[in-house]
């Protein structure tokens, strides 16, 4: 049975209503997004010029038209339209059922009655707008982009921020230098740079080159100067220049033995360096086996240091040593050098005391080097070079563990262990603690971790992370743990 015209007409009417509601719905959405897009050319009005406003209007219109077109083009099925009609016109699913069953070939006889009944009821229907309008979510936000677009259109053009990358090229740097050449601070920079003079050091070992006060000119032979007062350092950062000229510095960095020992420069005293050098000079040899040339160089260096300080108290001793050396009396030269060393040390101690600076081993608590019962006899005992020193429990420290190192005493983190030492008699290696730290049981299995820690200890000793003074003590500690 073909659909009756009345049923089809109602379905078409509903379909049309649905299409227009869709067009409204998607048109509003399109207006919203179009307005949002229209803000962009209005923001870029300085760039787009007179085209900004037409472009914004075009975007707004295009959004609206696209939404309307999309809403109109969407398909509306007859079944959906029939269901809306059934619901809105009170047809109790007659129309949709009639459309559904009317298209079937095998249908009960009652279907024809149903179709006839549906036609009769549809013809009695008064057509009206039954499809409700659904406002999209974007609609409530629509005033925002529209208002923004209007404000931007009526207001002066928004200046665009300059977003240019800094000019790293050398030409740019020179140009800027010329622009700012009248500045007093850049006068020196505008001058042609004087090439640093490279002088050979008086001694081949750089340790002998005593660094002056900060701000002093680079010492001859001190390659650390390439990091500061060079012409390269005064220039602006230039990657291309670095690639071309920085290779020289990289090559110098590869010469590790020529790099200055900054740590020794800043921490070692003149006396210690000279003492160290003299010890290396002797090297356990007898005075008759010492090279006169080496001894002469050492004496010359001591003389030079004395002149540099301006208070050459040991100059006479050095002179006597030089004379003795020229006369072939090496023993006398050595004695003169030793005297000069003693004076140098005394002068240094005096200057340190005047500045109220004392080293870790120079404490005035009665247990230090100066007040110790032993070790005052010879210069070797009075001070020590690397590899020597006071071993734990050997009289220089009252503590069986020895004095803490400078690092331990200086760092608050090393001393910030929770808990406190338990009371009562305790062994030297007793680590039991009371207090908050002592109440926390270890979560590690002792036997499972002691091996790891022992290996870590050996690695640390191998890498020389631990002062040699404490090597034996640490090994004894782990030995004691094993015995337990």
């Amino acid at each position, binding site marked *: 049975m073909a659909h009756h015209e009345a049923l089809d007409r109602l379905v078409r009417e509903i379909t049309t209503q649905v299409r227009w509601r*869709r067009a409204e719905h998607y048109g509003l959405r399109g207006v919203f997004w179009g307005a949002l897009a229209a803000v962009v050319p209005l923001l870029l009005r300085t760039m787009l010029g007179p085209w900004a406003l037409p472009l914004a209007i075009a975007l707004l219109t295009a959004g609206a038209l696209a939404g309307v077109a999309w*809403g109109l083009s969407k398909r509306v099925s007859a079944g959906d339209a029939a*269901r809306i009609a*059934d619901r809105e016109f009170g047809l*109790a699913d007659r129309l949709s059922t009639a459309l559904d069953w009317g298209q079937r070939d095998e249908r009960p006889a009652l279907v024809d*009655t149903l179709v006839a009944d549906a036609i009769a009821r549809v013809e009695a229907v008064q057509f009206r707008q039954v*499809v409700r309008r659904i406002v999209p979510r974007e609609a409530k936000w629509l005033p925002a982009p529209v208002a923004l677009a209007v404000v931007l259109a009526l207001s002066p053009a928004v200046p665009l921020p300059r977003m240019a990358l800094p000019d790293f090229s050398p030409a740019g740097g020179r140009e800027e230098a010329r622009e700012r050449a009248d500045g007093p601070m850049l006068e020196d920079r505008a001058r042609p740079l004087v090439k640093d003079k490279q002088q050979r050091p008086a001694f081949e070992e750089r340790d002998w080159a005593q660094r002056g006060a900060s701000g002093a000119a680079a010492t001859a032979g001190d390659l650390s100067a390439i990091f500061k007062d060079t012409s390269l350092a005064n220039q602006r950062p230039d990657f291309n220049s670095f690639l071309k000229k920085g290779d020289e510095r990289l090559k110098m960095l590869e010469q590790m033995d020529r790099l200055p020992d900054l740590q020794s420069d800043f921490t070692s005293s003149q006396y210690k360096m000279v003492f160290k050098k003299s010890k290396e000079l002797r090297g356990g040899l007898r005075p008759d086996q010492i090279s006169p040339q080496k001894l002469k160089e050492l004496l010359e260096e001591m003389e030079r240091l004395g002149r540099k300080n301006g208070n050459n108290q040991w100059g006479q001793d050095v002179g006597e040593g030089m004379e003795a050396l020229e006369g072939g009396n090496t023993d006398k030269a050595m004695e003169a050098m030793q005297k000069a060393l003693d004076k140098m040390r005394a002068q240094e101690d005096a200057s340190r005391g005047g500045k109220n600076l004392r080293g870790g081993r120079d404490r005035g608590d009665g247990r230090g080097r100066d007040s110790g019962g032993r070790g005052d006899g010879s210069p070797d005992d009075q001070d020590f070079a690397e590899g020597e020193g006071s071993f734990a429990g050997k009289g220089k420290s009252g503590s069986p563990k020895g004095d803490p190192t400078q690092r331990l005493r200086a760092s608050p983190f090393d001393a910030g262990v929770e808990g406190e030492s338990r009371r009562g008699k305790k062994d030297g290696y007793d680590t039991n603690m009371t207090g908050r730290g002592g109440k926390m049981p270890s979560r590690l299995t002792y036997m499972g971790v002691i091996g790891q820690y022992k290996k870590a200890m050996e690695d640390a000793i191998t890498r020389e992370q631990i002062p040699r003074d404490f090597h034996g003590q640490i090994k004894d500690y782990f030995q004691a743990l094993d015995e337990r």
Partner: protein
Amino acid sequence: MTQDARVEQFISSFQALRSEVEKVIVGHREIIDHVLIGMFAGGHVLLEGVPGLGKTLLIKTLAEGLELTFSRIQFTPDLMPADIIGTNIIVEDAAGRKHFQFQSGPIFAHILLADEINRATPKTQSALLEGMQEASVTVGGASRPLPMPFFVLATQNPIEMEGTYPLPEAQLDRFLLKLRVRYPAIEELNAIIDRTTQVRSVAVNRVMTGPTVMGFRELVREVPIAAHVRDLASAIVMATHPQWEHAPTVTRRFVRYGASPRGAQALVLAAKVKALAEGRYNVSTDDLKALAAPALRHRVILNFEGEAEGIDVDTLVEQVVDSAVAASSQNKELFVR
């Protein structure tokens, strides 16, 4: 006879029968309609209510309005299956020879009133299973058909639960509808008093025969149902299953077992009868909503939490229907799809 005439006859017969019942029964219009719906749909109806609400009287009146045989079985704990179905007894013929003869039980009637069905043992209750589903009983290896139309109307009391045997799920599932008979309103109560306490005899006329009922049953099955309405019926039934992926929260929380496919059949068939009785030739979604509770309330088994919380199955089914309708495509705004 044209389809219109058949439908008109059905509508008039339905209304006539309802009128005859209403001569005796005051109020309970919806119960009467649902009982008639169950009968014309070819199913059986379980009426649940406290004593004194007229359940038995309603069924007896209905039987009086039909030219059909009627049996009543008062279920008791000592009732045996043979008391319902019948048994073979030894009889002696004229020649003096003895042989077994089947003595049919009360089930062999068009309308069977199983009064207080939950007071019999499950064994006896199960004697009705085959008759309700297959419209036949098997005695002594011989299957005997029941007279058609066969219509079981059972009653049960929901409050006097001591000494009762709740119907098993299989038995419950065979009832097309389960109706809850509620207390009458005060106006109805006044009418009941007036009608039953005066010297006044009420004669119920027989308005329908068995073949007529069978013809109407065939007519009912011709009522078309649109695809989206059928989909809604399926969705409602599926929404009673907690395992279904789109089941509502109330189902997932309180339901142990949902309705069986018989539930969907019962829902659609009853909706067809309702549509036809209202003069429509098609099933509408409103028909499904109206009949969801009677068709599904005895098929939804609550879990422990549902029982402990005292969840009303009718309320649960109502929520299930709402969720299914909301999820159905017919209620969505079409133009945003």
